[in-house]
């Protein structure tokens, strides 16, 4: 199984980055100040993360701190992958 970082970096590089000058994407690159994540691409990313990792993202999760970089997204996903959740999302 590929590393979570690789899966997420691949997806963002392939689907969300509009400006090729931003590639290759480093794990700590700011996805917000670079404009890679805007309101439209955020939704696509949420859909992807929910489907790929079997997680459910709620109100309290759609925050800048969770989407600041590939690293922060990975940390978020790891904390919520099925089996690691304390409060059960339906």
């Amino acid at each position, binding site marked *: 199984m590929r590393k979570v970082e690789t899966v997420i970096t691949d997806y963002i590089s*392939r689907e969300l980055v*509009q400006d*090729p000058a931003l590639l290759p994407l480093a794990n700590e690159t700011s996805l*917000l100040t670079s404009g890679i*994540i*805007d*309101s*439209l691409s*955020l*939704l*696509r990313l*949420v*859909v*992807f993360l*929910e*489907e790929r990792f079997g997680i459910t993202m*709620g*109100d*309290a999760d*759609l*925050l*800048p701190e969770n*989407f600041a970089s590939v690293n922060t997204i990975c940390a978020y996903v790891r904390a919520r992958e099925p089996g690691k959740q304390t409060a059960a999302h339906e």
Partner: protein
Amino acid sequence: MAYLLQRLLTEAAARQPQRPAVASDGCLLTYQELDRLSNKVARALLRLGVAPGDRVGILAPKSAAAVIAVYGTLKAGACYVPLDPKAPAERLSHIVRDSGAAVIVADEARTSQAAGLADGVPQVVVVGVPGRPGVEEPAAAPAQGAAIVPWAAVAGESAEPLPEELAIETDLAYILYTSGSTGTPKGVMISHRNSLTFVEWAVAAAGLSEQDRVCSPAPLHFDLSVFDVFASCQAAACLTVLPDGAATFPVSIARWLEAERISVWYSVPSVLTLLACYGNLRQFDLSGLRTVIFAGEVFPPKHLAQLMAELPRPRYLNWYGPTETNVCTAFEMPAGWAEARPAPIGKACANTEVFAVTGEGRRVTEPGEEGELYVRGPSLMRGYWGQPAKTSEVLVRDPFRAESGELVYRTGDLVALEPDGNYAYLGRRDGMVKIRGYRVELGEVEAALYRHPAIQEVAVLPVPDELLGSRLRAVITADGAGNLTRENVLDHCRQWLPSYMVPDIIEFREVLPRTSTGKVDRVSLAHDQHELEPAGDGRPNKR
């Protein structure tokens, strides 16, 4: 009564000189300041030889500088053409060339981008905001001989009122470029009178006053911006700009609405759906918000009901109207609305008549009857810029009053009359879809794909999506070699199309299915799509 849009500003400045006019990114302009700064821009434009009727491109996101540029352009008697800073250079160059813009006005951060676009446009005028040093541009920015008039020079112009009005009410105030089915965007020409018909109605309908803080996240090239840029001014209310940084995350939007005490909000439904699903609205004090207006696409009823339940206090207004007509119908949501059907688009606005025409050419009079919606009145566009043939397809003789000689607009939207006289929106007659409220002609996306040398045939189809309105699916047949990848196709699209028009789903096929008449069989293609859709699709289904 004002008969030119810029009069809204001079009158507001005379009446309420010290009231806030624009709050943007920590910068606050009073009506007096906005009035005087726009006089300077108008003089700079006149000094460059801009004459009444000329087109002036404006390259800036919505901001204090952009609003100064809009009013400065109008005061010079010219017509503004918004240029979306995020659109691909190819598309912007086309709009600049097509409109014949004589000058581009840009904010300080976009001077180089403007100079790059100014292929054949000799001049770029820079607009800044006093007391806020902008981004320093390298001195050697000019490209292709474009002459740049820096903000320092513009700021040195006189701020006194211009001696005379340089336009009349039937002159063009702005041209808004919208997706065109034959592959290039078309420019919708709106005169001062067309716009003021909407603005005056909108101020009354929303009950705007100088106490209001108005926000619409729609960019300048989207006709929703006419409301916050001009209606706010008529009421001497404060136009507030949602900062880019706050616009991305629903919770940040909600936090910003609370902090800025926004009282009137106007946007496409998708932003409000996000707020309802992910905005954690109950956590915030949004008691200042008294009116929420949405337009541009159908609001999914489930999310509208959810929003109204989370935030029961404001009035909710559904406004309808293509760019070509301005808003032409409106419906106020009854409190506690929880119906499963979409909100009706309502009844005609003041000074406007709407009627529906059946497939047999009869006027719809009975509840339950369906037909295409037509619009009549002073808010209708003057036509498509430089495209008389296209104009005459949609601006047609009134079918029931041919002798009047008056033109009416065929919307292409199918509606049904309801028992209470409201109209309900049913769908489109043609290949136009809405994505986050933006109009997208499938033909324009197909034309962009055909520019790729390896693509032989293509069909672009909408895939319904609760949040975005639609997503786009491109079905492609490519040249023998077969090494065209999805990434190649996406990269190609991004050169020609704004991001909302780039297809999400790219599908390669050996051949496209055909109907008996040899046309691409879109119905059968649309049927196949169900197999493609990932289950669940991740759309918000919370609560």
